[in-house]
């Protein structure tokens, strides 16, 4: 009885089953590479990948690459988030602005951001600017439209109550609309941050001097699958950390919403 209920508790705890899933994949991976059935050129062993990671880390490449990629993501995303907030609020609270811009944004949103890369390279060359702008293009329209939706769904009574308490335009925006949409805005940022992270890798695959995506495409040229694995795992881990960061921010700043 007791053991079965503690088992049920463990099954519900996200910190138990998650690691079990990861460990099983690691185990299967190890078994396959130990069995020697797959050429290490295609599937490097876990120790080989670990060694490649250690080499890159000690050589300083790993950190330089990660910083380069993270910088691009944060610049592009900060620009996107900062501009999407006022525009999303304006579209959500003013039907005229919404009718004017929603079809346009809805259209651009469906143009895949990587398809802008050739244009960005023609306009801005191969430096940092086109990469940052790619991340901006890939996230700005989603951020804006998601914030707009959040604003549209602020309950009417909350706004009307503020009006009957003596509230006016701007104070209502900053003291009712902004706090109400905060959880949705943070969540929109969290979701779209994932595509920013995807895009930076795509941009670096095309053209870059350093960055995690660049490292992967170089590794491919030299058939270093171990380094490709390192790149993939590091990209995944950084993305996961960013996601967890947003979740923690959401939990801490919006206790009322849970």
């Amino acid at each position, binding site marked *: 009885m007791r053991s079965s209920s503690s088992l049920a508790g463990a099954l519900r705890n996200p910190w138990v089953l998650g690691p079990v899933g990861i460990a099983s994949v690691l185990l299967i991976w190890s078994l396959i590479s130990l069995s020697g059935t797959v050429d290490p050129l295609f599937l490097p062993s876990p120790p080989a990948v670990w060694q490649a990671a250690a080499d890159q880390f000690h050589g300083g490449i790993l950190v330089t690459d990660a910083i380069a990629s993270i910088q691009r993501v944060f610049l592009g995303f900060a620009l996107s988030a900062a501009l999407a907030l006022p525009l999303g609020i304006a579209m959500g609270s003013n039907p005229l602005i919404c009718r004017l811009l929603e079809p346009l944004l809805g259209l651009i949103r469906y143009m895949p951001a990587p398809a802008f890369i050739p244009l960005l390279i023609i306009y801005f060359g191969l430096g940092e600017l086109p990469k940052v702008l790619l991340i901006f293009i890939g996230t700005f329209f989603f951020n804006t439209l998601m914030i707009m939706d959040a604003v549209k769904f602020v309950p009417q*009574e909350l706004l*009307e109550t*503020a009006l*009957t*308490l*003596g509230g006016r335009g701007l104070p209502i925006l900053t003291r009712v609309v902004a706090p*109400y949409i905060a959880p949705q805005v943070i969540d929109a940022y969290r979701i779209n941050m994932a595509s920013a992270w995807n895009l930076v890798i795509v941009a670096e695959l095309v053209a870059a001097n350093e960055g995690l995506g660049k490292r992967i495409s170089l590794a491919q040229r030299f058939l270093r699958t171990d380094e490709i694995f390192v790149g993939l795992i590091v990209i995944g881990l950084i993305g996961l950390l960013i996601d967890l960061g947003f979740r923690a921010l959401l939990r801490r700043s919006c206790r*009322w*919403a849970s």
Partner: protein
Amino acid sequence: MHLSVNGVSKTFGDGRHAKLVLDDISFSIKSGEFVALVGSSGSGKSTVMRLIAGLERPSAGVIALDGKSVDGPGSDRGMVFQKYSLYPWMTAAQNVAFGMSLQGLPRALVRERTAYFLEVVGLQDAARRLPKELSGGMQQRVAIARALAADPKVVLLDEPFGALDLQIRETMQEFLYQLWQRSGITALLITHDLEEALLLAQRVHIMAPRPGRIVRTVEADLDRSNLAHLRVSPPFLELREELVTTLRNLDAAAI
């Protein structure tokens, strides 16, 4: 204080879709009065209230507060909605303080008045709790305190207890009545519950639907020293019975 609603009509939509929701509504409230509007759902009660609050404009007629025509929402007409419209991210105290702080009152005064009004509604111990940590009845008391703290000339209550359980509703009715007696507020209560209206208000306007109009006004001159007794006293029950019949006939005629 004198609130007058004079010949007010309201039509929603236009052309073929035009729908007359209120037809020539007139009544008035003076300082310190407790007036109720009662009618079945859809008879236009909330619309009357939204017009007085300035959240909608009349299609015809005039609403005036102290001789000044109402042309938008303002803090001189406080409002309590049926659905708890507390700000979920603010504590009870912050909700009560919100109107005063929007109006730019000095911080010290806001704090003092917040404490005072929380005490008036008996929630001084819940000051730091979030709305989701309060029961439905407590939430409505916070909403009432918030409306009063903004110092309105008249408080508009739209089915304030409609979402509460019967038991709590009766407690809240007595709470509201005592609050009105003690603090000398002016209140317009909207309800579909005839008993509630008769129990609390000195004057009850009965509304009929399609289009919404006042069909009868009752001066409910009753001994309210003990509401629990009043609820079951023969004169009260008789009056209630008679009005229930009136309402039922009106609804039958409208269908």
